[in-house]
């Protein structure tokens, strides 16, 4: 009863104790303020990483690549789509510029709604036949080559036969796309499957590009072994190991920075506890003089401070998540300001909330605060009931 009464008194000070009320509100908001950028950084990193991963999977590598014959049929509940594609590369050139590119030959039906959304296509009816080979390039590549939709460009491909010179392949840009991710956009060119087989040396590298359902993505190798039926296969992370490891390392560095910030926030929580005890100095002496136990008092102050910390934590998390939804539009707006460095990042991403990581940050904050507050509680022990007779 005493504990509850005292905690209530500390958490809900009377209206005339303006300073105490303000202190409570200030502390909650300060802790929330610390949490907000941590949450935003996490959302940015995870959102960007997920977004980039999704783009590579959807547009370049698929979840799985099965190296099966042309007539190989596939039917499994874990599979969202399976499209036969052919890969190769070449050099694309216009009158003014040239660039090395990845060529991807696809069939009708490859551009399902998911891909369509990623590529920002106006229509899936792309690569319509023209007098020359139709291709689809990114707006980024078109700008680099100084060409537009409808213009003609040329390719050099590896000569089919030894000793035979390379011949330029004329093509027309019938469509353009934009994934908002420079790294992907700058090098990927789509053409018709039949054209790719015709022009790429040895018909290019043909395989089945498989997209899995959301549930099956965590069982990549299990599904692969099941559906490949003995044929060789590869998964998306094997093609993008460097990108993946870079992100993992960046994440680890960010977490290190988080911990340091939380450490300093823990110092603030210790100050708060110190302040509360200081302000209650005479009262604590009086409680002790009236018979209150040390452990009761320590428990009360610990609970009050941790409750304030938790409130700030939760508020910060919620506000951070809320602001996270505004992050991508803001970054996109910022990129239009001309900050070149932003092109290395994917700015158009969905909000991904890594609850496990948020829990980890929250738990770290609670642990650090517990430790720092614990140190200040030792002061309560030192307050003698005799202090009630002295004035500050």
């Amino acid at each position, binding site marked *: 009863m005493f504990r509850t009464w005292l905690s209530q008194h500390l958490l809900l000070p009377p209206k005339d104790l303006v300073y105490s009320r303000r202190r409570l509100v200030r502390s909650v908001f300060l802790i929330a303020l610390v949490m907000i950028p941590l949450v935003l950084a996490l959302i940015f990193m995870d959102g960007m990483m997920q977004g980039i991963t999704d783009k590579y999977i959807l547009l370049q590598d698929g979840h799985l690549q099965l190296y099966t014959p042309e007539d190989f049929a596939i039917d499994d509940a874990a599979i969202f789509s399976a499209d036969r594609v052919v890969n190769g590369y070449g050099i694309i050139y216009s009158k003014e510029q040239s660039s090395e590119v990845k060529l991807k030959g696809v069939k009708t039906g490859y551009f399902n709604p998911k891909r369509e959304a990623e590529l920002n296509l106006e229509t899936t009816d792309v690569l319509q036949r023209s007098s020359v080979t139709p291709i689809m390039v990114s707006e980024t590549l078109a700008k680099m080559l100084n060409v537009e939709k409808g213009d003609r460009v040329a390719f050099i491909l590896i000569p089919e036969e030894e000793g035979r010179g390379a011949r330029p392949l004329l093509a027309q840009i019938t469509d353009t796309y934009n994934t908002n991710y420079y790294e992907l956009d700058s090098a990927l060119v789509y053409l018709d499957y039949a054209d790719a087989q015709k022009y790429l040396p040895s018909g290019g590298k043909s395989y089945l590009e498989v997209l899995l359902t959301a549930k099956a993505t965590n069982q990549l190798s299990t599904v692969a072994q099941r559906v490949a039926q003995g044929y060789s296969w590869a998964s998306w992370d094997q093609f993008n190991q460097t990108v993946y490891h870079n992100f993992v390392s960046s994440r680890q560095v960010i977490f290190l920075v988080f911990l340091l910030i939380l450490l300093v926030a823990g110092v603030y929580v210790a100050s708060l506890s110190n*302040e509360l005890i*200081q302000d209650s100095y005479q009262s604590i002496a009086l409680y002790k003089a009236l018979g209150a136990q040390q452990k009761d008092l320590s428990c009360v102050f610990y609970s009050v401070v941790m409750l304030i910390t938790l409130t700030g934590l939760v508020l910060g998390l919620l506000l951070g998540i809320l602001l996270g939804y505004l992050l991508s539009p803001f970054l996109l707006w910022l990129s239009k300001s001309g900050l070149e*460095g932003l092109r290395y990042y994917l700015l158009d991403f969905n909000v991904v909330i890594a609850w496990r990581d948020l829990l980890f940050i929250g738990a770290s904050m609670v642990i650090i605060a517990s430790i720092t507050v614990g140190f200040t509680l030792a002061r309560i022990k030192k307050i003698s009931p005799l202090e009630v007779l002295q004035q500050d």
Partner: protein
Amino acid sequence: MVISKIAYRYAFSKGNRHRSASLVIMVGLAIGMAALITLLALMNNLQHDLLEQVKSIESFHLQLSVASEEGELEAIKGAIKATAGVESTFAFVNTQVMVANPSNQNSSTGRLRVVDPAIWESANPFSDHLFLIAGNYPEGAEEIALSNAMAQSLKCRVGEELNVTLLVPGRTAPLAPATLKFRVSAIYSTSLREFDESTLLTSSEQLLKRLGLKRTTFGIFLKEGSVDKSHNVITELTKRVPEATIMSWQQLNSAFYSALTLEKIMMYLFLSFMFFILGVNMKSASSRLLFIKQRELAILRAIGAPRETSLKIFLMQSLLITLLGLLLGILFGWLITSNIGGLFAFFDSLQYLFTHHHSPLLSYPFVVQLKGTEIAIVAIVVLILTQLFTYFGIRVALKREPLELLYHA
């Protein structure tokens, strides 16, 4: 002197119940500063290393591009070399190519850099950062050096032949593909992954002629003191070669450089949060202490201390706490950065107990780079910030004349 004494006592006096607030803030400042120093030292080195690779291998310190006849190139080269701050210069050309190994049909796209053969003969940042794994530098007309990454992708060795397809001026079209044979004279490696994955090197003058480029680019390496002050060299070069287009490595790698700068700014913003929290701490601690010491301040006024004494005492107190905190932080930061390898190895072995995997981050052979000016600027900014926070914490209370406490006695 009285003010300093009072300020010190208010901050650190043993009998002072409010000493713990000062100590907590000081510890917080020390942690914040140590963290900032460590992270910046790591970041500086990583970025410095990366930029060093880029400048040495990819873009040179400056690039001077000029449309000229062959006969004028030597004169231009001489003019560049004669410019103060220039260490060396080498003409080069980049062109997109497709490479195929006829023995196994493996192929790849890439970039062929045709570079002045003198680059292999002298010590310069390019040759210093490029390591020959096998063979000799390409000197002949049909010799090419391949990166280790490309050699693995094409599955070829030193001595083997490759077909290289590239664009040259056509007879009827502006550009037409041409396939040439080259012998692999060397396999090399650099620390720049993007360079290695796509670049072949040659010094073939015949190829240069075949490419028929209207513009020649000179890659320029600057002397040590001039690399980050290249604007002076650029100004001088512009006078000597007025028709040339000159770009610095920052301009040539503008997007990349901008991304690195952004990352550093983000790091600063994050870490500045720590000092913001501490500043708020200091504000509330100062205002509390002022409230408690009002009577003492009244007596100081009564015995003749001028009006601004209170303000000075509190600002001095905050200054003392901040200075000590910063000094401690700088000391800790320096200690940590000096022993970063050992520390990370320790943490790696600790996490290994749980994960049974070595962390690539903790196993990385970090080298640190402490920039004194950066630390000094941060320290000054923190100092000003804490003083401002202290002032905002006490200014309302200071408006009330403490003498009033004695008026109505």
